[in-house]
């Protein structure tokens, strides 16, 4: 007689607890964290942007399946909203406004150095929006408050290049730059000064633009000057054509690239044999990490294959890391409130993002960002066979 009410009470409590737990679980499942991403999904720079977008979705999927982003007792599922900037400033501004209109306050991207400065005033006019740039290398983009970057700056690229040209002691250098590339054009003068300062005389500075196919005029002039090294700054499709044309015009010196160049894009315009020995002064890319057997990079490669049947892109690991950086900052802040998350960004340490693939060098106090910018080691790669390989020794063999 006595036992029955107790059992009933227990059952009632149990039922209530189960219901509450289920309700909490449903609530947790329904909790969404919107991250917007802006990349060139279509257009001439889509070979950069599409793999970046896919890597972001792969990271979000990985986080979501392993419990989501934990804020207090709530687990948020990441929802990625994609906007295509077509690597054009005007389209990029519209894309950003679209994302903001859809409620995205955390933004990853862009890659195009022409788009990033166009987005900056809009981001800065919205203190509730945080941007993490995973592609553009142009100077002056980060503010260390709401705009951060986990990609190297163009200065890192130039440092790698100047170390190489110094180590190899090229007496003369010619430079050919994409006139429309904001990052490269903005850093051209400091680069020339650095090269001249260390004894690499710059004998020619020529220009081209995206989608050009005829470089004979500039290269005829350069070939006649016989510089020891020809530095190309721009995009891979044009870089391949310039390298090919230079060789056809009899240029015998060292060709050095300074841009991310997926072999699949390069080999559309030049044969592997013609690329043999070309150097590239950039930080290690996603494909380098895969080639070096980095476990996390290999895992990402497998996930991209499974999800999209796509290869890993050269910048994929940066985009992948960007999602994990947001996760770390939000969890550190313990809220989705933008001011707190922005503050957490400034306090993040490299050790707070254990899933990051890129080896970000810790700043003062182990911080990930210094004035909104990470430190990534520069490097040099050499084309061998069908792709790039890290160059261990900067001195000529």
């Amino acid at each position: 007689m006595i036992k029955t009410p107790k059992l009933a009470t227990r059952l009632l409590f149990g039922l209530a607890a189960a219901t509450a737990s289920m309700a909490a679980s449903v609530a947790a499942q329904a909790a969404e964290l919107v991250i917007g991403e802006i990349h060139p999904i279509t257009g001439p720079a889509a070979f950069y942007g599409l793999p970046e977008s896919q890597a972001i979705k792969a990271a979000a999927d990985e986080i979501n399946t392993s419990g989501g982003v934990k804020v207090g007792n709530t687990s948020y599922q990441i929802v990625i909203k994609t906007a295509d900037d077509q690597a054009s400033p005007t389209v990029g501004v519209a894309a950003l406004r679209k994302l903001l209109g859809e409620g995205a306050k955390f933004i990853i991207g862009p890659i195009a150095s022409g788009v990033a400065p166009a987005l900056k005033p809009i981001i800065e006019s919205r203190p509730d929006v945080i941007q993490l740039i995973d592609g553009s290398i142009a100077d002056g983009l980060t503010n260390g408050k709401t705009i951060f970057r986990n990609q190297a700056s163009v200065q890192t690229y130039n440092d790698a290049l100047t170390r190489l040209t110094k180590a190899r002691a090229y007496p003369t250098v010619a430079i050919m730059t994409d006139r429309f590339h904001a990052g490269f054009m903005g850093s051209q003068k400091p680069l020339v000064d650095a090269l001249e300062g260390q004894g690499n005389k710059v004998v020619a500075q020529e220009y081209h633009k995206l989608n050009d196919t005829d470089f004979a005029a500039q290269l005829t002039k350069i070939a006649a000057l016989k510089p020891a090294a020809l530095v190309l700054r721009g995009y891979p499709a044009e870089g391949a054509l310039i390298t090919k044309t230079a060789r056809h015009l009899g240029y015998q010196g060292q060709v050095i690239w300074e841009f991310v160049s997926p072999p699949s894009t390069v080999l559309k315009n030049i044969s592997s044999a013609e690329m043999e020995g070309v150097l590239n002064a950039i930080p290690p890319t996603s494909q380098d990490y895969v080639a070096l057997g980095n476990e996390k990079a290999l895992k990402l490669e497998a996930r991209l294959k499974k999800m999209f049947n796509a290869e890993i892109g050269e910048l994929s690991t940066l985009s992948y890391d960007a999602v994990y950086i947001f996760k770390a900052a939000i969890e550190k802040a313990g809220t989705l409130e933008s001011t707190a998350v922005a503050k957490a960004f400034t306090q993040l340490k490299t050790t707070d993002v254990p899933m990051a693939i890129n080896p970000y060098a810790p700043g003062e106090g182990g911080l990930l960002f210094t004035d909104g910018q990470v430190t990534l080691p520069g490097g040099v790669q050499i084309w061998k066979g069908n792709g790039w390989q890290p160059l261990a020794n900067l001195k000529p063999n």
Partner: protein
Amino acid sequence: MQSRIRCYLIPTALLALACAATPFLNDYVRYVATLAAIWAVLAVSFDVLLGYTGYLSLAHGTLFGVGAYAGGLLTSRAGWNFWLALPVCGLIAMVVGIIVALLAFRTKGLYFAVLTLGIGLIGHQMFFVAEDWTGGVVGFVGIPSPPPLPFLMLDSAGNNLIISLLLLWVTYLAAGVFVRSPLGAASLAIREDVVLAQALGIRIAAARMTAFAFSAFFAGAAGALFAAISNFVAPESFAVMTTGFQMVVLVVVGGMGTLWGPILGAILLTTLPETLRVASSYSLLAYGLLLLGFMLFAPSGIAGLLKKGWRARQRRTASTTTTVAPTVTEGAR
């Protein structure tokens, strides 16, 4: 009276309607609508030159850029008030336009188009070269937004849209005044037959120069507004093959020689790429096909198609009335 309603009251009523709808639109829609309005300003003013006077200028992308950079310089560096800078930017673009016109009107037909193409290319390069003024390829950053309109209490996106609509309204009314003026009539005569117009004693120099200056003024004003709304401008936005060519497409697709047709063209061609973002790789193809289609099958543009549809409807209504009328008469007997 009917003409006055069509010329002034309908655009004013449409402006009021659009302004009333503004608070109910989201930021993104308002931004796209703002861009459409700016393009419509360019299209209407360009139509005065292309559609009413018959001169195809490919230098107007540069004039749009002159207004944009002038706006940036005046408001961010010289600290001018936006409302003062806006007409001054129009005047600066107009002065540049008059210089271009003085050179270009020495030629005619295809040569005029080619010469303005060359000027457009030079202008675009100048935006790269004059780095101290334009920021070069890196762009001009930090242009202040337009100030809020008094009494409306709108946020930035809404404010931008209303200002763009107001500029479009002013452009449309001013274009209407121009085309109905003796200069407008002279422009039409030039378009039809310049030799005959000269023979009739029409002062063609004044008419076509005024048409060019008019279009340059509003291209400059639109550029200044575009710069203030974007807070940033880069040379890419003022290339001949993008902006210069697009103005021609807007007018041709909308309907040359009608002031309201180019507005429809601007709305269609601004919203289409936004709605078809997923197929943006094919946007140039779509533009080309649209232009080809309209040139071949509807040379008078959307405006022409609408007019044709309206007339057909009126004819159908009239024929129904005449068929029905005898029956009624018979019944009455």
